[in-house]
């Protein structure tokens, strides 16, 4: 039997059972619009790549990580000082997490400003918003796992907010923390959330998100609306777009590696529930704008607690943002919808200003 026919036969065998031909035909014909805003198309893919990096490094960390107040910190110490390339795996996991939040944000805002959320992509937008919330929850729950001092207090502050909700606040707080305070019980809960609950939900929502993307194709720029088909430049998805995407992935990996090598994450000192909070305690950068906004609110606004009011406003803003495809009816598919664009600009500026202030004032 000539050698070449072995992979060929294998392919045939699989094709008969899975209809691979259809998939390849689909890929061959799939096209990506080519325009001045094409660069933004890559951030979704990069976010996906970073998710894969997180899954891989996360599983690797699980090989040595032992959750528990007496072992979390110690096992991390072991990983970064004793295990071969353990420091690298841990640093990539942390840096890639931060980069992922950034890429997901950029992806969201580019979709917002390119108006790609409009019909028929409402569900893509909403599942994307869900993914964003999940990414933030991933970040928040993972932050506590090294059980160091900063993580401990960040979690205390972060979860404390749920307590300000009237009536059910106390109950919610207890559920989130696994008790009245941040303890080993909180650590167990966050660990379970981080490595079991979230990955499962995330994978489901992500599959749905990508499925919609494949069904609908990438959205075309708004100003293409009235162009004849021959004036809409496109690029084959495979291999042209895929190879370009690949270059972006490699760049992202290079950036993460450089950050991991030159700016390693400190393990800090082990959490001590009976020590007082260290000076300059603050949340991760992507929560900074909320943290800072809450600080600006007075303790009481009318009959309400300031903190609670702030939280409600943020939640409300989140809900409004989530349903964006349903209230942005300005101009239908092709309109420019100035007002919506300006709202987006305002949100971006607000987040940037609050984040910068957060770092300057603390």
């Amino acid at each position, binding site marked *: 039997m000539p050698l070449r026919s072995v992979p060929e036969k294998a392919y045939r065998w699989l094709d008969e059972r899975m209809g691979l031909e259809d998939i390849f035909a689909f890929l061959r014909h799939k096209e990506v619009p080519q325009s001045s805003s094409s660069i933004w198309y890559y951030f979704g893919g990069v976010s996906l790549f970073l998710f894969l990096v997180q899954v891989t490094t996360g599983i690797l960390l699980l*090989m040595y990580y032992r959750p528990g107040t007496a072992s979390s910190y110690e096992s991390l110490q072991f990983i970064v000082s*004793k*295990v*071969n*390339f353990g420091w690298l795996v841990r640093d990539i996991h942390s840096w890639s997490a931060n980069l992922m939040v950034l890429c997901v944000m950029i992806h969201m805002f580019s979709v917002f400003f390119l108006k790609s959320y409009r019909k028929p992509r409402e569900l893509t937008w909403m599942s994307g918003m869900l993914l964003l919330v999940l990414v933030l929850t991933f970040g928040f729950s993972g932050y506590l796992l090294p059980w160091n001092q900063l993580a401990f207090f960040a979690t205390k502050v972060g979860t404390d907010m749920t307590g300000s909700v009237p009536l059910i606040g106390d109950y919610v707080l207890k559920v989130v923390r696994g008790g009245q305070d941040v303890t080993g019980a909180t650590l167990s809960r966050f660990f379970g959330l981080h490595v079991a609950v979230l990955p499962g939900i995330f994978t489901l929502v992500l599959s749905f998100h990508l499925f919609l993307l494949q069904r609908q194709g990438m959205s075309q720029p708004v100003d293409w609306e009235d162009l004849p088909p021959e004036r809409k430049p496109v690029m084959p998805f495979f291999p042209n777009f895929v190879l370009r995407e690949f270059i972006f992935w490699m760049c992202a990996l290079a950036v993460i590696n450089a950050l991991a090598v030159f700016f390693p994450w400190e393990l800090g000192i082990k959490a001590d529930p009976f020590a007082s909070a260290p000076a300059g305690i603050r949340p991760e950068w992507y929560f900074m704008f909320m943290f800072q906004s809450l600080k600006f609110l007075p303790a009481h606004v009318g009959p309400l607690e300031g903190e609670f009011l702030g939280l409600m406003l943020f939640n409300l803003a989140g809900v409004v943002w989530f349903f964006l495809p349903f209230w942005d009816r300005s101009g239908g598919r092709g309109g420019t919808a100035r007002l919506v664009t300006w709202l987006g600009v305002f949100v971006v500026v607000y987040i940037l200003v609050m984040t910068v202030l957060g770092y300057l004032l603390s």
Partner: protein
Amino acid sequence: MPESGDKGRRRFLNFVLGAGSLTFLSAVTYPVLKYLTPPDTGAESGNETVSAGKVNDLALNSGKIVKFGNQPAIVIRRQDNEVKAFLAVCTHLGCTVQYMPADRVIWCACHNGKYDLNGINISGPPPRPLTPLKVNIQNDEIFISREA
């Protein structure tokens, strides 16, 4: 896909793509494989000296299991007052052995393997003698360590 073109250039680009991907894959695989290899923690290799308690707490013609690193060791005080120690790991399939005072043998319950008091396999499936440990008695305290 290019319809025509310089075959040499195409081949060169394919080579660059292939070699690049291969380099990338090995650059990722190597650290991962190294990472998965557990580092030597000392406890594992058991190259330390472990106290096995007082001689007088161990009756004549009796034995006990003690922790040696993360492996079990068996310490036996023979009828003639000599103290012997072995790794308590059966050389057959790795069960932990025990001392049988009645027959004066070291016995493995898993497949009825037997060793004499010098750790030599005398009956049953074990293919090799038990790994002997060095015994050092100081002020009535038994210290065991791996034989050099």
